[in-house]
């Protein structure tokens, strides 16, 4: 309290006045100005888009829930789910194969990833669709030996199977690398511990390694899912009636190109927004063990306080 000569560095005023609790924040004028300008530009942009006749908003409204559009939407969603599911399962197998010490498994996986990541998805889809021109029949048998069963390729490869095969195999190549990265991110000691406890490799993967790898697998997988939704629009080139193909079939008739594309764009944005929300929930689930503070902790601290002798009894 007493004013000593050593206190010269402090501004005038005693300790209570210098308490940072009473400090004033200066008004952030620069930031307020930035907000005002940005909002003005955004409002003008929204107003001009809404009032531009050429966007044809009444057509957008009219066709937004059109049965053709909705069935196309279902096809796009269905393709996404099926291709993604196959892609993740196959990607996991590829990732494990690529990490395995077995040379055959790891080189086969590398070859698969090299090929399907290295060629455009559009080309892969067209190849699958036109498989019958390369291989008129598909058969099961012994290489260079007799065949047991065989099918006409055209009866096996419909636009649907070509689309699923093309999207899923391509996705598997990308997912394999994402999952491999996730598995490698887990501390080696974890696998060793699982081994020391006598876990089989598959159980160690399932119970110990994959749950920990998920934290680094989920975010890029969310990206892949969103890419996949949009990649399904490529199947319109092989006459698969997805969302894009449906709006195209309508504007080929009505010539309302921009409004119909807007219908598709808005649907794509709606789906990806929903997926973003789901992703953030999944990420929170897999990082639950990271949170130092939380309900569990608070309750346990109380419990610890009730039995203070526990620790001291050591």
């Amino acid at each position, binding site marked *: 309290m007493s004013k000593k000569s050593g206190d010269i560095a402090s501004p005038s005023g005693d300790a209570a006045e210098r308490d940072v609790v009473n400090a004033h924040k200066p008004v952030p004028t620069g930031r307020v100005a930035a907000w005002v300008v940005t909002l003005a530009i955004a409002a003008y942009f929204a107003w001009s888009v809404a009032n531009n006749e050429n966007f044809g908003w009444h057509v957008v409204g009219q066709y937004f829930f059109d049965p053709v559009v909705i069935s196309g939407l279902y096809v796009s969603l269905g393709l996404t789910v099926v291709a993604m599911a196959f892609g993740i399962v196959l990607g996991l197998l590829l990732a494990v194969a690529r990490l395995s010490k077995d040379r055959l498994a790891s080189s086969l996986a590398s070859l698969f990833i090299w090929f399907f990541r290295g060629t455009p998805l559009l080309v892969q889809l067209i190849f699958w669709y036109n498989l019958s021109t390369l291989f008129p029949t598909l058969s099961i048998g012994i290489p260079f030996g007799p065949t047991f069963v065989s099918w006409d390729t055209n009866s096996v490869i419909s636009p649907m199977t070509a689309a699923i095969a093309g999207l899923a195999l391509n996705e598997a190549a990308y997912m394999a690398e994402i999952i491999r990265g996730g598995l490698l991110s887990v501390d080696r*000691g*974890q696998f*060793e511990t699982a081994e020391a406890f006598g*876990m*089989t490799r598959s159980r160690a993967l399932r119970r110990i390694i994959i*749950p920990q790898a998920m934290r680094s697998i989920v975010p890029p997988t969310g990206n892949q899912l969103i890419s996949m939704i949009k990649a399904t629009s490529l199947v319109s080139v092989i006459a698969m009636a997805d969302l894009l193909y449906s709006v195209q079939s309508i504007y080929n008739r009505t010539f309302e190109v921009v409004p119909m594309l807007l219908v598709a764009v808005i649907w794509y944005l709606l789906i990806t927004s929903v997926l973003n929300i789901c992703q953030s929930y999944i990420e929170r689930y897999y990082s*639950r063990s990271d949170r130092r503070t939380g309900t569990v902790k608070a*309750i346990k601290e109380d419990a610890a306080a009730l039995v203070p002798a526990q620790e001291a009894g050591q």
Partner: protein
Amino acid sequence: MNALVNLTPLVRARNVHKSFEHLEVLKGIDLDVAPGEVVVILGPSGSGKSTFLRCINHLEAINRGSIEVDGEQIGYRMNRGRLVQLSNHAIALQRRKIGMVFQQFNLYPHMTALQNIIEAPVGIHGESRSQATDNARALLDRVGLSAKADNYPRQLSGGQQQRVAIARALAIKPKLMLFDEPTSALDPELVGEVLATMRDLASQGLTMIVVTHEIGFAREAADRVVFMDGGKIVEQGKPEDVIGNPQHPRTRSFLSRFI
């Protein structure tokens, strides 16, 4: 009767050699550990003591010699007079009798303390969840952590994590416990609580092989102290002899640093 049982060692290592690439880490280790015996392995860094411990449950495959635990050769079996390598699955079965505690604790970070402990009993040993949970709570109580059952490892101190790791290893009712420098990653003030837990186990007749730098623990809790240097056992015997009156110059110079 009792003397007869004690004649059969639980662990029998013969002429164990281990090399990494061109570096020979173990140069012929012979060691028998009797049931209920507490063996503490001392030695300078790089003497091969941790590697030897990891060979006992086949985390490292040995290059020469043999290791038997509870009458079974680890990693191999005899088939019509020929020694055959075991499959990964069969090795996993052999490991289920051996508990291990690691320097870095290695608790499963995505599971609570309780889940860490019941993982192996429920998932591997086929215990019912309720029985395993009761047992796990008793073990947590024994290591003085019954209030921390639902905490994740990240919410525990290093000493608490290591005590949970000890409880986790005990939960599989092991015939043999391996401790790989269990206190080396701990802050000095947390070492005591882990050593107290281990001393408690040693007094209850658990067979333990402990690799450590804690001379005090070796002196108080060990039945036998083994001193390793340069991939060989240079001296072994009762703690009061090896620590109190070391014969070999390497042992003497190593121990002199702790006094």
